[in-house]
């Protein structure tokens, strides 16, 4: 049998009760002899950027920097409003970029939301551009290194552009926020983006203070996302056609088409102001098991 010699320093360590003290003393005493991979490290909270919406900031703690954040939701669920609010705050400090997969960005709405358009690089992807570039290269015979083929599915050309442009932006660095707007890309197409692409983006953005924000209909980056937020239109106001202007708009909690046989008439302001949204945290870097019920009600102001 072989005996293990224990140094007096280690004997002294075991007299202490606190586990933290014990760990700190072990590391300080044997730190020189242990490999750094064996040492435990505190999980440091990443820096965050504000959403610009108090309810969402309180719910999530903000947009984590150096990480991928997903905001998912169907049409008219407030994704774009949240995106513009986040960009409005970010463009006052840093240069930001928006990769617009469906060319749906409205500069007038952005300006109304407070975005400094001078500091926003807007990349408008389109299905025709890739084929045009290939055609140019083929006609000239000047470029043998053509663009790679698209993924071979619907919106494959656009998604190919989005992924390439995002790669370039993240490699260039220096952007405070890079937003990928896939809000109008069908879920089936967005899900066919290889998981390796999201993983690559996450790795590219990790050592930087950049916020990588993904707007989509359904979450598709899986575990690569540090924060996943699901948006939902909770209620829409409606009223009778006989309602006068002084009557407050009534809220309904669900929509059932068979119960609304004819077209209801509402005022313009009520139609837009009555849109109430609910944000739900699906995954968060700060919570190992996010409570599914955690949500926040977001009021959107009609300021068009």
């Amino acid at each position, binding site marked *: 049998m072989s005996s293990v010699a224990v140094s007096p320093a280690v004997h002294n360590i075991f007299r202490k009760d606190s586990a933290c003290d014990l760990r700190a003393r072990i590391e300080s005493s044997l730190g020189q002899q242990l490999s750094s991979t064996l040492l435990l490290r505190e999980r440091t909270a990443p820096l965050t950027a504000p959403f610009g919406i108090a309810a969402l900031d309180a719910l999530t703690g903000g947009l984590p920097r150096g990480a991928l954040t997903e905001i998912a939701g169907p049409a008219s669920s407030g994704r774009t409003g949240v995106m513009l609010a986040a960009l409005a705050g970010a463009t006052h400090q840093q240069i930001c970029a928006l990769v617009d997969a469906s060319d749906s960005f409205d500069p007038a709405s952005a300006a109304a939301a407070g975005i400094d358009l001078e500091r926003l690089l807007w990349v408008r992807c389109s299905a025709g551009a890739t084929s045009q570039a290939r055609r140019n290269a083929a006609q000239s015979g000047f470029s043998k290194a053509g663009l790679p083929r698209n993924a071979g599915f619907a919106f494959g050309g656009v998604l190919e552009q989005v992924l390439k442009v995002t790669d370039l932006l993240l490699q260039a660095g220096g952007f405070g926020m890079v937003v990928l707007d896939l809000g109008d890309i069908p879920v089936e197409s967005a899900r066919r983006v290889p998981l390796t692409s999201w993983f690559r983006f996450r790795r590219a953005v990790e050592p930087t203070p950049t916020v990588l924000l993904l707007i989509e209909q359904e979450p598709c980056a899986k575990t690569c996302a540090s924060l996943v937020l699901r948006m939902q239109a909770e209620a829409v106001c409606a009223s009778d056609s006989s309602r006068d202007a002084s009557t407050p708009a009534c809220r309904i909690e669900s929509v059932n088409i068979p119960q609304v046989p004819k*077209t209801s008439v509402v005022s313009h302001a009520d*139609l837009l102001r009555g849109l109430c949204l609910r944000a739900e945290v699906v995954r968060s870097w700060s919570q190992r098991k996010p409570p599914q019920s955690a949500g926040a009600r977001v009021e959107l102001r009609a300021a068009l």
Partner: protein
Amino acid sequence: MFACIYIPDFPVEAIVRAEPLLREHAVAVIEGKPPLTRVVALNEKARLLGMETGMTKLQAAVFAETPASDLANSDVPQRRTISSPRLALLRQRSREQEQAAHAALLDVAHSFTPRVEDAAADTLLLDLAGMERLYGTPAKMGTELQSRAAAVGIEGNVALAANPDAAMHAARGFDGITVLPAGSEIQRLGVLPVEVLLDGFEISSQTASFRESTGREREKFREQMLDTLERWGVRDFRTLALLPEHALASRLGQPGAQLRRLARGESTRTLNLCEPAQQFQEAMELESPVENIESLSFVLNRLLEQLCARLEARALAAQQLWLRLQLDRRVADEQTTTVQELNGLSLESHSVIPKPEVERVLRLPLAMRDGKVFLKLLQLDLAAHPPGAPVIKLWISAQPAPPRTAQRGLFLPLSPEPEKLELTLARINAIVGERRAGIARLLDSHRRNSFNVERFMTAVGDISTTSSLTMSEDVGSRLAMRLIRPAYQLTVHLCEGRPADLNVDNGKTEGRNLQGIVLWSSGPWRSSGDWWAENANSGPSGAWDREEWDIAVAVARDGSNSANIGAEAEQNVALYRIYRDIGTGEWFADASYD
């Protein structure tokens, strides 16, 4: 103290500057139309092979790699490889490359001192009075001058002396760096042959009549003077310097006396100063047409390196780059003819054939001086706008500008590096197309979707430092719009004058659920404009007159349309803006609220 930079065999050096691999080989430069093509310059290695200036092309071909039979057909460009350094390489003289090399030499001289005389294409004289404090001893100044010339790809002789003519003769007569202390000129220059004196007499001569004489007259004067001195037994500077001045002047006139002063190193004169040029251009004529961008990149890289070295020598940067490509005329004409035939045009319309030259302009948002960035930008630009025919000659010019001198603060947020950002934007443009990436600038108009996309650029120091206050503020969320480009054309059924049901005409909604029963509607709102414009009815920028509605349609949460939604299905409500064109009566959907 004066200095002289002299480049021996300047036509060869100009070609070697563009092709540095030739420096290890014997190179002869030929010029003239066949059959009068002759060797006009050659380097030392070619002389060692036995070649001489004035040889015909056929005589030179004996020493060259390429057989004379191939060289005789000079119309066909030859693809040559540099295989054996023992064989000479023949190159056509290139005036553009000589001009570029001379301009580079001037840039080097002006980077050293503002007092420069452009004496000849291969000779520059510099006034270095007072430069000792900056550069040190004359030997150090000579070394610095030579290294700066080498940085722009030119190797030559440098000499420093108390007067410009002595410096010039020393540079023309001695290799490397030569420093002539004051008073020792007659001893050091004494060993040089009188040919050196007569070669530089055109520069040194103070008489206006000699300067205004033609080249043939100067050549005649040189031959006569050489004959006379040869008959007298005068072969070097020392012998000429010892001749009595009056006797020499009585026999050879004023030039004779001046030659004696030059040989003694006693001539004094003021320099004829020149202004620094503001044009930076490099050119290269290719031996054979280049058909692909990869091969052209090597040439571009070399030219850009030279251009950046010149800019660096002058402490400048480039704000704009011009790339001019001369195309192979035969291929360009064939392609043009083919296009005309396809279009049914007659061949008599050859007069409208465009010139076989292509020019590309690279406008940079900030002054830059990175050759690699320029190369990549040009590669991307050529890939997007291919010239269409093989390239046989190219020019690159730069518009000089002061370099950026901004210093960023330590605590300012990061922003993209300008060079890297420009490269990234060029790559993005290559992917998404021209003018599809940039800054959206709103126009002063009530027309929907009216904006311009402008070039994205970041001004240095533009990032504000008062970000902490902004971050803590609740910006708030506003209902935003997502535009549909192009707008969907709809078929709308009305009920009591309001939209009740709608469908997209071609059925392609590209991920948007825009069909079915209208739950609620709000409107109409009339808007019109630009009816006062002259081109009111032409295209999308013409007049508009429309009736807008905001509507809500129901969609299932799984994304299916409302037509399939049952009573139990979970539903969402989507808000859209639709409009009816008053002129045509057609319905469109152009935005959604989100």
